[in-house]
């Protein structure tokens, strides 16, 4: 049946990927532009990277964003894992419909609504706004994305291993820690990375719930972009693209090796039978 792709399909793929990647490629190219324009080439220069690294506003905002993103990703991965496990393994329980709803609605909820609603909660609680409120707001939507990734992996896992552990007398908590979590590891790493980047990327929700002294990187970028385009922002974008690509490639390679190792082990075990 597979006779290769139709030329029209190939053309659409090429067009689609060009559309997705052209802006990123152009962004990277003009981060090395000598002049201040981001659309007219006037010579190669890495000077904007120097400007970027000397900009105290960007540096302190970047540090703030990284701290929030790391805390967010760690808490969201645990909460998302618990939520996904409950939905994937517990069957029916009281309040499941409401729980499913709350786990999926944040995936599509417009940021302006979530941002306003979360802010009003913090005002109502008289909670001092700042880093903690941004982190909490980020965890709330990140955990739902984590749960999507974990559930996909959970549903493809062979439950017989977990059942075997229990049959051998392991308590469910031990089975969860020693069998389920290691099998979910690739999904958990991917989920942590996704939660990290979602937080690093959020402008709207953070703007609503931020307080004085908790300016994040997207907030600085947004205010700079509003004043006009600058190769400094291109340089920042290039660094982010490089960092993310590196993380994903490294993670993919590690898991490919682990998967190969696991297959080899399984073959050894088969032969031993």
């Amino acid at each position, binding site marked *: *049946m*597979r006779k290769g792709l*139709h030329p029209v*399909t190939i053309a*659409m*793929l090429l067009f*689609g990927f060009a*559309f*997705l*990647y052209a*802006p990123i490629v*152009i962004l990277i190219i003009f981060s090395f532009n000598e002049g201040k*324009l*981001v*659309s007219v080439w006037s010579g190669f220069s890495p000077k904007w990277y120097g400007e970027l690294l000397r900009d105290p506003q960007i540096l302190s905002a970047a540090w703030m964003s990284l701290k929030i993103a790391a805390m967010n990703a760690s808490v969201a991965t645990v909460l*998302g894992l*618990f*939520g996904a496990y409950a*939905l994937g393994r*517990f069957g029916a329980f009281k309040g499941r419909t409401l*729980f*499913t709803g*709350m786990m*999926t*609605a944040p*995936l*599509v*909820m*417009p*940021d*302006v*609504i979530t941002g*306003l*609603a*979360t802010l*009003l*909660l913090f*005002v*109502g609680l008289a909670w001092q706004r700042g880093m903690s409120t941004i982190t909490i707001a980020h*965890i*709330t939507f990140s955990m739902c994305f984590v*749960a999507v990734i974990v*559930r996909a992996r959970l549903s493809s896992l062979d439950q017989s291993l977990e059942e075997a552990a*229990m049959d051998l007398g392991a308590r*469910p*908590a031990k089975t969860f820690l020693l069998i389920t979590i290691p099998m979910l590891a690739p999904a958990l790493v991917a989920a942590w*990375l*996704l939660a990290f980047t979602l937080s*690093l*990327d959020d402008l*709207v929700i953070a703007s*609503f719930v931020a307080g004085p002294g908790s300016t994040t990187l997207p907030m600085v970028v947004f205010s700079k*972009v509003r004043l006009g*385009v600058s190769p400094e*922002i291109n340089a*920042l*974008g290039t660094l*982010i693209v490089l960092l993310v*690509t590196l993380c*994903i490639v490294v993670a993919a390679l590690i898991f490919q090796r682990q998967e190969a190792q696991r297959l080899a082990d399984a073959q050894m075990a088969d032969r031993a039978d």
Partner: protein
Amino acid sequence: MSAGGAGGLGARLRARLFSQRTVVLLPPYIWLLLFFLAPFVIVLKLSISEAAIAMPPYLPILDWADGLIPDFTGTFYNFSFLFTDDLYVVAYLNSIKIALVSTIACLLIGYPMAYGIAKAPGTWRNALLMLVILPFWTSFLIRVYAWIGILKNNGILNNLLIGLGIIDQPLPMLHNDFSVYVGIVYSYLPFMILPLYANLAKMDESLLEAAADLGAKPWKTFLAVTLPLSVPGIVAGSMLVFIPAVGEFVIPELLGGPDTLMIGRVLWNEFFHNRDWPVASAVAIAMLLFLVVPIVIFQHYQGKTDEAAS
């Protein structure tokens, strides 16, 4: 899966570990009740409050001054206000129009791409899928920003078209509805492709072979078999694009013109510039009322994929 008899995992958990189940379920449950559901109740309350010059800038909706039964001092003025000023109605309709057209454009570009990836040879498939996901991981704000340099009057696209002699005056492509469409389609395209791919990849090949064996032409097989079977993917992808696009703020703010009215932008301005929290809340509730139907459709689909998975 849980139907594994008395030794089944579900039965074991039920019988032995009620408490451990609770330990797993309660943290995410309470978190979402407190930080996701409760805020919406507060928005609802605030949308019927009166604005005031105070901090926080609104009045309580219940007055406990005389006796045990409070007087309702709330107001539905904020909602009627939304209808008295054309701004809000126009912004709503415009947001829906822009989101709808963008969703259709995403579908027209995304469907052939998802189809191509699903039909690509195995070694290519993962790489192509990775290429779809990768932009989604890099800064959304900076990717939207990149379009400014491409679309502006002396931007890359205009320079290219003038250089090729296709046009001699730069086309106005930035700060209008066109650039907003480009920005939304570009940003949300991966959200359309991924559920479509998931659907198309698991499609039963034997159905297509049967159609071909019975003499159906490839395009007829596509229309009669592939397309109807991929409807769940189309619905999921469309909802993932349409719902957030209605409330989009960053794209109309950076790429749109001053007269590109979208409801997310209106809400932002009510809150940050006019500091009218009750009207901002009313705008949010009105937007939510409109989005409830698409959100329920989306959740229904998610629930179905859950069932299919377990």
